[in-house]
């Protein structure tokens, strides 16, 4: 038996399958349900609530966890949450393939939308708190700073993806076209990482760590890609 034959590779690490199956059953009972998803959805926004509370403290001049420059702290925190949820979104499929937990598929939308929410909060923080909603400054700054151009472009790409994330839009576009559109997520990864890298002063350790994590996810996706159908002459030899 060879994993190279057939429309799709077989399950990776098959000896782990029984373990994943056993561990997956109780998880599926909670996370595989609608209310389980609602729970995860709500939990994803716990950091947002916490950040909002810290921002309120900072605004009042109270001690807070956003640091000596609270607005910068909030920018970093929302930016990092965006990158984190982007990675989680892209990791859903590899983890599903590894574990066979197919109920994870619905979490792509959950995490993708959470990521969009944090990315929007990131942009709003910059516009409303850093530039204090001076729209002239906003336009000037976004055009003048290459890393802002890249970051803003990334957010713009996210907008149609978020809008078409609903079941209605999947039906309207059809699976093939919807998939093609949502491959723009990869472009968001590139723009997001370039934006992150360029915004660092000198120490690029963190963007490099995140970059490596994305590389790992993409390497998996490339490894698990659907191979081209083998030539028919070889078919009998392998079977």
């Amino acid at each position, binding site marked *: 038996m060879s994993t190279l034959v057939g429309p799709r590779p077989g399950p990776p690490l098959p000896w782990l399958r029984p373990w994943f199956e056993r561990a997956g059953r109780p998880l599926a009972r909670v996370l595989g349900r609608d209310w389980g998803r609602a729970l995860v959805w709500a939990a994803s926004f716990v950091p947002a609530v916490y950040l909002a509370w810290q921002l309120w403290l900072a605004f009042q001049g109270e001690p807070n966890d956003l*640091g*000596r420059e609270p607005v910068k702290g909030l920018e970093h925190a929302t930016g990092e949450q965006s990158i984190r949820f982007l990675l989680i979104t892209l990791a859903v499929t590899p983890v599903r393939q590894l574990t066979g937990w197919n109920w994870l598929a619905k979490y792509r939308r959950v995490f993708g939308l959470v990521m969009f929410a944090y990315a929007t909060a990131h942009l709003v923080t910059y516009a409303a708190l850093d530039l204090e909603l001076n729209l002239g400054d906003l336009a000037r700054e976004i055009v003048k*700073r290459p890393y802002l151009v890249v970051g803003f472009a990334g957010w713009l790409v996210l907008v149609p993806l978020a809008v078409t994330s609903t079941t209605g839009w999947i039906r309207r576009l059809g699976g093939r076209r919807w998939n093609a559109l949502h491959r723009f997520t990869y472009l968001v990864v590139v723009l997001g990482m370039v934006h992150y890298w360029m915004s660092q002063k000198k120490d690029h350790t963190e963007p490099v760590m995140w970059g490596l994590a994305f590389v790992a996810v993409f390497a998996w996706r490339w490894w698990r890609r659907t191979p081209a159908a083998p030539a028919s002459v070889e078919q009998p030899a392998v079977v």
Partner: protein
Amino acid sequence: MLIRRAPDLTAADITPESRFLDRRRFLREAGLLGVGATGIVASLGAGLGVTGLDACTSGDATPAGPPAPDRVTAYDDATGYNNYYEFGTDKDDPKTNAGALRTRPWSVAVEGLVARPAVYQLDDLFRGMTPAEHVYRHRCVEAWSMVIPWLGYPLGDVLRRLQPQPAARFVEFTTLLDPAQMPGQRSSVLPWPYIEALRLDEAMHPLTLLATGMYGKVLPNQNGAPLRLVVPWKYGFKGAKAIVKIRLTDRQPQTTWNAAASDEYGFYANVNPAVDHPRWTQAKERRVGEFRRRATLPFNGYADQVASLYAGMDLVRNF
């Protein structure tokens, strides 16, 4: 060490001199024009004009009212939020990692175009001099700022005793190189040792300090103990910390941040709201402890004292 508070330098001195002069100008012009309402309005307009902001920034960045008052930054903020890459690149790294630095005994090598080159013990460098308190605005190139009461000596007084040779045109400062004590130097994030430099006339300016203390205490390690440079009209990175060498030279030295990113950090690094950093505007700053941003002043508010040093110079090219 006896620390005397100079009676002539108090927190009130950090009010920009231009604001102070406004008062006299106002009285003079009001007198000339009569005490009519027209006169008052005209002189108020003229008074706001000399704050100098509009000379350097686009009109819409000019604040409508007088600059917000400067209050001394909390000691905890000034000692817990530092850029000092020798101890790590995060702002709280210096406080965490600088504690073990041995600052005594400490010697400073004085080299180059100077009549009395030697290796001086720190105390010998200032023998017979009295440290005084100077409250300065401190503006980081990253667009945050503080107000720090430094204790120190005018660099010019020290240099005069060392007697620069007539050919000397620049003063170079070198920070300690010791990866065993400075863990950040084990990373190649910057070329070590850290080197900063001033033109000789900038170094001789009475605002320029060699600081050994702040907030009435000995300088904390994370703030550059035992000896650091303070140049209040320049971005903070010009202030070399833990200085072990002072060299006078006739050529402009290659400074560290300028070598690392010459398009972002110039040799002069004068605080200038009209010249942006490539990645952010320098027109505004966030004062640590305040929520909203405030306007950045040309030469950090010391234009009256130092602008003449750069008369006729293109400050956009020589950023």
